[in-house]
């Protein structure tokens, strides 16, 4: 009988000793490698000069002042949602309902624009829209949080289902607000008066979007790092029992945190309706509620890293539109490119967290 245990060829071990600089070196190498693989894809499959295609992406995303601002606007919205999902995820509350929370914020904003648009002065109207969107998104977050805190329901399913409910709410509202009748769309709200539209700030079309999102980002940073609430969230996330032992009212923390989370997603809805689209449809949220989760996780809940990642993702999206137009490529081609880059970026975290050890040659 052979009693020796067969040693596997490769074996993994956790590593915690990697220095900060080395970690970033790995990430940069991963991005460069992904670009090389993308270049290979572009060259072999679509038979084009990869450098030209990369140029097209850069050109499309930031090539002109306006393109830069469109990219910035979309990146800011995405960042806002990423900031919104952060506290809940940090608490290990799997809130995949940001999409619905955004939509409820949109509904609240659009409703205010339609019903109060011409009755209130602009400043007051905008403040009210802001507050109502926060409340609407917040309620959409508090519902599953309450059930979780009270009866320990599964928040993943609950928040996911509420997305569909929110879509139906939007569909329902469109029936009342549709313009013209039968078209199944709301059209631009208050186009002649621009009531309830975010005005320019510092001469920038999207100045308010920038100001609101940056302020929220800074506040969230402080909230998570420097306040008692932030600490409670971290403790509940690590272990509910520890939290309870430390005298934290877990239920209260869950409801409050997810309420804030949903509320900020609602504000993202406000920014979408008031600050860029000026209309509402079931696709207004456009999957941002899900993309933002990727952004938040990739950034390890560091709000500054989120800003960088949100910008990169939108950069790729906008670039994609350009290469689709310029080289007559289907947009799917650029999705493949984005996919390859994401694969490498996420994949490299594995090598940061684990060490590969190969089987050593045994000397008898």
């Amino acid at each position, binding site marked *: 009988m052979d009693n020796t245990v067969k040693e596997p060829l490769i074996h993994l071990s956790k590593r915690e000793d990697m220095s900060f600089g080395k970690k970033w070196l790995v990430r940069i*190498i991963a991005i460069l490698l992904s670009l090389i693989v993308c270049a290979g894809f572009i060259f072999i499959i679509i038979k084009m000069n990869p*450098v030209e295609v990369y*140029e097209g992406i*850069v050109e499309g995303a930031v*090539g002109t002042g*306006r393109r830069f601002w469109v990219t910035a606007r979309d990146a800011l919205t995405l960042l806002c949602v990423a900031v919104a999902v952060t506290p809940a995820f940090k608490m290990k509350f799997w809130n995949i309902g940001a999409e619905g929370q955004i939509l409820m914020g949109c509904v609240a904003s659009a409703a205010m624009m339609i019903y109060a648009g011409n009755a209130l002065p602009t400043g007051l109207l905008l403040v009210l829209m802001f507050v109502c969107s926060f409340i609407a998104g917040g309620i959409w977050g508090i519902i599953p949080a309450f059930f979780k805190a009270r009866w320990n329901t599964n928040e993943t399913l609950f928040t996911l289902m509420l997305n569909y409910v929110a879509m139906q709410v939007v569909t329902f509202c469109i029936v009342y607000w549709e313009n013209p009748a*039968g078209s199944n769309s709301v059209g631009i709200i208050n186009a002649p008066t621009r009531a309830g539209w975010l005005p320019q700030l510092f001469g920038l079309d999207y100045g308010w979007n920038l100001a609101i999102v940056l302020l929220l980002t800074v506040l969230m940073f402080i909230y998570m790092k420097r306040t008692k609430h932030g600490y409670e969230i971290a403790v509940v996330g690590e272990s509910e029992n520890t939290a309870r032992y430390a005298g934290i009212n877990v239920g209260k923390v869950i409801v409050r945190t997810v309420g804030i989370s949903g509320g900020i997603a609602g504000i993202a809805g406000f920014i979408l309706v008031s600050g860029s689209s000026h209309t509402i449809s079931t696709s207004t949220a456009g999957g941002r509620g899900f993309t933002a989760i990727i952004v938040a996780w990739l950034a390890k809940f560091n709000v500054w890293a989120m800003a960088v990642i949100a910008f990169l993702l939108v950069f790729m999206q906008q670039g994609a539109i350009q290469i689709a137009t310029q080289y007559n490529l289907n947009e799917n081609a650029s999705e493949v490119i984005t996919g390859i880059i994401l694969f490498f970026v996420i994949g490299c975290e594995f090598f940061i967290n684990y060490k590969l050890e190969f089987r050593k040659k045994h000397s008898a």
Partner: protein
Amino acid sequence: MKKLLAFILAAVMTASLCACGSSKGGAEGSTSAKGSSAAGEAVAASDIKVGCIMIGDENEGYTEAHLKAVEEMKKNLGLSDDQVVIKTNIKEDEGCYDAAVDLAEQGCNIVIANSFGHESYILQAAADYPDVQFCHATGYQAKSSGLSNMHNFFTRIYESRYLSGVVAGMKLNEMIKNGEVSKDKCKIGYVGAFPYAEVISGFTSFYLGVKSVCDSATMEVKYTNSWASFDLEKECAEQLIADGCVLISQHADTTGAPTACEAKKVPCVGYNIDMIPTAPDAALTSATINWGPYYTYAVQSVIDGTAIETDWAKGVKDGADAITELNDKTVAEGTKEAVEEAQKGIEDGTLHVFDTSKFTVGGKTLEELVESGDKDATKLKDYIKDGYFHESDVESGMPSAPAFTFIIDGINSITK
């Protein structure tokens, strides 16, 4: 190993530096192309730049028809590929405004958008760029906007739908003659997108075409509430067939309905594209729009420096609408002659599709409805004169977009 890595890194970095450097050059190039002409000023054909905003891409029938029109326009006017910038898959949201503004900033003299929901964004862009001409298909707001650079266009698709209705009616007559269906049971099914004027006008003209040859026909309309969904359209057609419909037609953009019809061997009339490849044993013909004449006209106007009409709608007579090749395998005998006769009538103005003596709404003619003060009829009373409904009749001052919203007797429209 380390050396190799260092080498690769260095190589990649140089490559990316090159990429950054040359992309700046590209950006300057495109901004210098700016400088569009004011309306009324002629532009040399070699200097003109045309921007297009499309809801879909070549995989979707409606946009495919528009892309064909762009090609036709390019050929007619001798434009090169880089004079036309086409943005595909532009949704009906702020992305449409971004696209329109981007095209204007790239130096396009004219921007053409193809989807109904693009309109308000195009209006917004038209207000921001008064020197650029904006044309929007299927919209209705150009006239009321008061912007001289905003234009709507459509075609008199109801004329080709009427002709396709004649084809369907002939087929029904044949089926009645062969004893496949009884006269009182010949019901048509219609897969509609939305209960919206464009669709209602479309199915009414189709039905009137059928009625002109087969008087006993009735029609049932079901909606998918989507412009293009293969699954919903297929399912909708299947339900209609199960409901006893013996012929199917559609106003939705995919091949869903013909696919269902082919499986059940039910004759069908398509939309946008020839359905014979999809349903060789079921398709009769399709009603199609040829947008080519408009694209050529609009771009030609910019070249000549003449104003583009605020509302444009041409029909069968000008080649803007037609029916596709008749499927010899399926159509009834004498169809070709019947279609030719109807087409001749439409072209010389002796046949009006919406002839008010040919249909009733709740037992009353449109004229009687207006007299009785019916709310819907009163709203549209300008259209109702000279014995017919002046649909898309831009010559007598009507908008190009369809307006006919009456559900006439014989049609059962199921909105639930």
